[in-house]
């Protein structure tokens, strides 16, 4: 794997796939830098797999182009694209040993036996399976099988590594270890990678950038931090983590802050570069919210009044579920300290004032 310094970038241009009357992928345009790992994330059926398979060449696009290293590969068959791919079910050849599986791609490239052996050994030791070379895949655990598949994919020094829900069949702990392991190897080798997942934690953990897909289109592209704290739409904000949404009207603008009076009563300040909007939708993450008791009939100066409905102890946090005056739900995640539950002082029926720092406010589109 010494020669894997030739990282390639990937570009998708207007990539579209239509099945009959159903548009699975609708004009996806995206640039992925050399050595970058991008996660395609979205609900079931949004076109993630179809997009990945078009990049691989396993599905022929109806329209648009795939460019690897600036070279248009749209009409080039899969087996000449030099791509490593991981499948959810590992797809190891059951009639070949671990070493034969890993050697397969090198054999297809016509390498001599003497060249193949050291490469296979290096790849297997990279995934810490050096001692398993002679086993059959059926004699390995799921995690080991996927590591063999990873070795098999990277030993050919691919231009691209494509992963379609590679860890979907593993249990939670193993999945987290594998996420870290795959990510480390991908970074070490500097391979450009595209990961398909519908597990948001996996996307946030592994990817340099996350692409949120919805109905065959790109909804938002950004770093995990941007996607989480600066969601573009209500859809993204509720798909990644949990979010509270507040409707309001802009009542004033000063010092780079919008003053928004909320439909549920109360008001908040939102740092925003312009005051071009009148009606806004604010997204607030539950972990940003602090609660304080509120006298009956009082109105918080900054924040929103709410009625506690349920308090749920969750270990690290306590979730306080509330209802706002306009009937909308609102939730706060309060951090717990050992021996002291943050929600202890609240009970169902209590009137509270929910508030948070202005920086926690973010305006999203209502779609």
């Amino acid at each position, binding site marked *: 794997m010494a020669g894997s310094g030739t990282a390639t970038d990937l570009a998708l241009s207007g990539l579209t796939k239509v099945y009959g009357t159903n548009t699975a992928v609708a004009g996806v345009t995206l640039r992925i830098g050399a050595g970058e790992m991008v996660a395609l994330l979205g609900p079931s059926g949004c076109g993630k797999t179809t997009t990945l398979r078009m990049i*691989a*060449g396993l599905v022929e696009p109806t329209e648009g182009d795939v460019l690897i290293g600036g070279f248009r590969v749209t009409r080039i068959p899969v087996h000449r*694209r*030099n*791509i490593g791919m991981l499948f959810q079910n590992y797809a*190891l*050849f059951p009639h070949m040993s671990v070493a034969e599986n890993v050697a397969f791609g090198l054999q*297809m490239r016509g390498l001599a036996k003497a060249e193949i052996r050291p490469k296979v050994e290096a790849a297997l030791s990279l995934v810490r399976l050096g001692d398993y070379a002679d086993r059959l895949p059926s004699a390995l655990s799921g995690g080991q099988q996927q590591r063999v598949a990873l070795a098999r994919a990277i030993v050919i020094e691919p231009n691209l590594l494509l992963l379609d829900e590679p860890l979907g069949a593993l249990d939670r702990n193993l999945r987290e270890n594998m996420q870290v392991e795959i990510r480390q190897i991908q970074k070490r080798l500097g391979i450009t990678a595209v990961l398909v997942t519908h597990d948001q934690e996996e996307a946030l953990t592994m990817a340099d950038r996350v692409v949120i897909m919805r109905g065959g289109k790109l909804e938002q592209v950004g770093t995990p931090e941007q996607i989480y704290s600066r969601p573009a739409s209500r859809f993204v904000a509720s798909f990644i983590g949990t979010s509270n949404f507040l409707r309001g009207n802009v009542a004033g603008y000063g010092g780079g802050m919008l003053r928004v009076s909320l439909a549920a009563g109360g008001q908040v300040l939102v740092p925003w570069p312009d005051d071009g909007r009148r009606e806004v939708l604010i997204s607030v993450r539950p972990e940003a919210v602090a609660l304080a008791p509120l006298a009956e009939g009082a109105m918080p100066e900054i924040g929103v009044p709410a009625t506690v409905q349920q308090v749920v102890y969750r270990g690290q946090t306590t979730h306080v579920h509330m209802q706002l005056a306009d009937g909308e739900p609102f939730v706060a995640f309060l951090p717990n300290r050992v021996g002291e539950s943050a929600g202890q002082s609240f009970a169902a029926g209590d009137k509270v004032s929910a508030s948070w720092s202005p920086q926690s406010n973010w305006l999203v589109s209502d779609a």
Partner: protein
Amino acid sequence: MAARLSGGGGALTYFLAAAGLIFIVSPLVVVVALSFSEASIATYPPVGFTTAWYQRVIVDDEFRQAFLTSVTLALASTVASFVLGLPAAYALNRWEVPGARTIETILLSPFILPILITGLALLQFMALLRMRDALTNLFIGHVLITLPYLVRTVTASLKQVDRSLEEAALTLGASPWRVFWRVTAPQITPGIAAGCLFAFMVSFDDFPISFWLSNAENMPLPIYLQNSMTKVFDPSIATMSSFTIMTGILAVIGLEKLVGLRRAMSV
């Protein structure tokens, strides 16, 4: 697979299996027993023990000719069904062939058409085309009825092959041709073997097609047996039948040695 059946359902299953076995095997045992009988006509129970019938049958030129014709015909139709059936099944299942379902139905139709009528129709058709070579005609007729077995078993095996294995091989740089030989073929070998065994036995055992298409010089064993039986009914008939049974057993053992019967029959 090795789980034991228990309870009422289990008992019933064992009973039915045993009954089936008795009905299939005991007539065969009777035939084999008769082939060693010293009596001059084939009646049960056999009298004494002699291998005289075997010695006689083995040197009987007509029998040898018929046996050879049948084996040749069965091997040839099996090979032809393999050569035609494998690509046909592959194309129908892996490529987007327009009208694939219709083509598959046509290929499998000998399964449901009455074979005796198919044979008669073939005879008339071949007479019309002035096809006079009985061996060629027999070969064509046998391929017609053995091909569906290959198409069926290969199709069933192909459906069981995990497509992502083939896709993984493609991404690793294997051309579709090499994907087939390195990945697909090893997965479907048991199915192919089972199909070949069926094809061989169906041809070797065929009466209704051969009945119409054979002549005095090219007479497959089942036709020859039937002819002999109408002349004499001595234990040599049972002896010849025993050879047929043995051929079947040998074919099954061969398959077992080659790929393992259980794997082959699991399609």
